C-alpha cells in the first residue's frame, strides 16, 4: 500500500527523533568512556593524562564498590520482593466486589505520584525521626525506646520508603492483568471443587506471570538508579551503609571531583544496567509480536 513517496515522507518524519536519540546516546557515552581512561580531576584542570585501566582498577577494588554493589542488589531485591508480594495481595483484594472501589484505588495509587524528594523527607522527618517522628511517639507511648531508623538501619529504611513509592505501580499493573482473567474458567474450577489456594496457584498465578515479569523488569530499571531518596535521607551513610552504585558514582565525580574514577564507575553502571535491559527488551519484543 505504501508508495515510494509516502515512504520518503515517513522517513523524514522519523529522522528528527532518531537523530536526537542517537546523539543523546552516543555523544555523552563516548565522552564517559574516554574520561574513564584519563587521570582527570576537576580541581586540577589541564593536568589530564592517559592512565589505561587504572580508574577501573581503583573503582572496582575500592571496598566502597563492593559495599555499593551489595547495597544496590539488596535495594533492588528488597523493593521487588515487597512490591511483588504486596502488590499481588493488594490486587487480589481490590479485584473483589466491594463498596467504594474507585476511592480505594485512588488512595492506593497516590504514593506513586509523590516526588521522590518529598516522600523521602516526609518519611525521614515525620515518621522515622527518633525524637519527633510518629514511630518514636508511638514507641514512647508503648513504653519502648524510640529506634533511630536511618542511623541504625539506613538501607532497610530506604528500602521501605522506596517500596512505599513503588507498591502502587505493582498493584495497578497486577490489578489490570487480573481484570483480564477469564471468569468462566475460574467458575468452572470452583464448581469442580478446586480450593481457593489451588485456583490461585494453577489459574491466577500463571495468568499473572507476564505482568509480574513486566513489573520486575521495569522496576529494576528504575530501582538501579535510585538517587534522590538516598541524597536527602542519609547521604549514603553512615559510612557506605546506604550507598548504591548510582550514589557512589555521583559522590566520586561531583563530590570528590574525580572525573576519571567517576566515569569508570559510570561505565560499570551502564554495563550492569545493560544486563538487565537485554532481558527487558526481549520480553517487550515478544509482546510486540503477539
Amino acid at each position, binding site marked *: 500500500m505504501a508508495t515510494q513517496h509516502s515512504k520518503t515522507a515517513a522517513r523524514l518524519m522519523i529522522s528528527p527523533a532518531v537523530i536526537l536519540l542517537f546523539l543523546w546516546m552516543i555523544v555523552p*557515552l563516548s565522552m564517559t568512556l574516554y574520561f574513564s581512561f584519563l587521570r582527570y580531576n576537576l580541581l586540577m584542570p589541564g593536568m589530564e593524562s592517559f592512565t589505561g585501566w587504572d580508574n577501573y582498577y581503583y573503582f572496582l577494588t575500592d571496598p566502597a564498590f563492593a559495599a555499593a554493589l551489595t547495597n544496590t542488589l539488596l535495594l533492588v531485591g528488597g523493593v521487588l520482593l515487597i512490591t511483588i508480594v504486596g502488590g499481588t495481595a493488594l490486587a487480589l483484594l481490590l479485584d473483589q466486589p466491594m463498596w467504594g472501589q474507585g476511592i480505594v484505588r485512588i488512595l492506593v495509587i497516590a504514593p506513586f505520584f509523590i516526588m521522590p524528594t*518529598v516522600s523521602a523527607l516526609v518519611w525521614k522527618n515525620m515518621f522515622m525521626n527518633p525524637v519527633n517522628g510518629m514511630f518514636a511517639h508511638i514507641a514512647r507511648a508503648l513504653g519502648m525506646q524510640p529506634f533511630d531508623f536511618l542511623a541504625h538501619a539506613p538501607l532497610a529504611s530506604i528500602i521501605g520508603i522506596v517500596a512505599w513509592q513503588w507498591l502502587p505501580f505493582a498493584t495497578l499493573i497486577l490489578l489490570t492483568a487480573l481484570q483480564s482473567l477469564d471468569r468462566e474458567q475460574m467458575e468452572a474450577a470452583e464448581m469442580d471443587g478446586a480450593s481457593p489456594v489451588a485456583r490461585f496457584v494453577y489459574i491466577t498465578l500463571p495468568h499473572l506471570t507476564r505482568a509480574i515479569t513486566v513489573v520486575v523488569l521495569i522496576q529494576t530499571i528504575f530501582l538501579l538508579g535510585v538517587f*534522590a531518596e538516598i541524597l536527602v535521607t542519609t547521604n549514603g551513610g553512615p559510612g557506605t551503609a546506604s550507598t548504591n552504585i548510582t550514589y557512589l558514582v555521583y559522590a566520586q565525580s561531583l563530590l570528590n571531583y574525580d572525573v576519571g574514577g567517576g566515569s569508570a564507575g*559510570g561505565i560499570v*553502571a551502564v554495563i550492569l544496567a545493560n544486563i538487565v535491559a537485554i532481558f527487558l527488551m526481549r520480553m517487550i519484543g515478544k509482546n*510486540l509480536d503477539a
Partner: protein
Amino acid sequence: MSRRITARRTLIVTLAAWTVGFLIFFPILWTVLISFKSEGDAIKAPFAMLMSDWTFASYEQVQTRSNYSRHFMNSVVISLGSTLVALAIAIPAAWAMAFVPGKRTKDVLMWMLSTKMMPAVGVLIPLYLLFRDLGLLDTRTGLVIVLTLINLPIVIWMLYTYFKEIPGEILEAARMDGATLRSEILYILTPMAVPGIASTLLLNVILAWNEAFWTLQLTTSRAAPLTQFIASYSSPEGLFYAKLSAASTMAIAPILILGWFSQKQLVRGLTFGAVK
C-alpha cells in the same frame, strides 16, 4: 442464604480494602494535616498535634521566605515545556511508524526504547561538563533539553500504541466516500488521535514533574524546580516540620490530581503497551 453470605463477604472485603488503602495513603494525609499547624504543634505527639489550633502560617512563610512560586513556575515550565517539545518530535515519528511501517520499524522502536535503559550516572559527568561549558547549568532551557530526551522514547512508544489502534480501513472508507485529505485529517484522524495524545501528555508531565536525578544535579537555585526546592529541607535550621509539610503539599497536590485522572494510561504508558 447465599445473598446474605455475599453481602457479608463484601462487607469484610470493603473493610479490609479501606483499611489498607487508608494506611498506604496515611503519610500523605498526615503531611497535609501537619501543614496546617504551627511549628511548635507540628512536633507534638500525634493526638496532641491533631487537637491543636489550625493555621495557614506555614504556607505564608514558605512563600515569603523561599519564594515558593518561582520554583513552582520552574516546575511548570520545565515539565510542560519538555513534554510539548517531545510531543512535537514524537507525533510525526510515531505517526509514520504506525501508518507507514517499514521492514525496520520494529527495530527502530526497540532501539529507541533501549536508550531509556541507559543509567543516568553513565552520562552524568559529560553532561555536567557540557552544560558547564555551554552555560546551561541551572537554566530552564538546559533541563527542558535533558527531560525532553530522556522521556522521548516513552512518548514515542505511547503514541505509537495509540496510533496503531486507529484502523486504516476507516480512512480508506472515508476516501471512497469522497472525503478530501483535509477533511480526512480534520474530521476522522484528529478526533481519534487526540485522546491518545492527551493521555501521553498527561503521563509525561507527571514523569517530568517528579524527575529527581537531573533536576537535582543540574540546578541549584535560579532554575530549581520543586524537587530541588524540597531537597533543600534535608538540612534545615530550627523547627521546620510545618513548613516542609506545606511546601510538600503544594508540590504534590497538582500532580496528584492529574495522576488520579491518568491511572489507566499509566499502566499502558509505563509498560510500553505490554500490559493493557
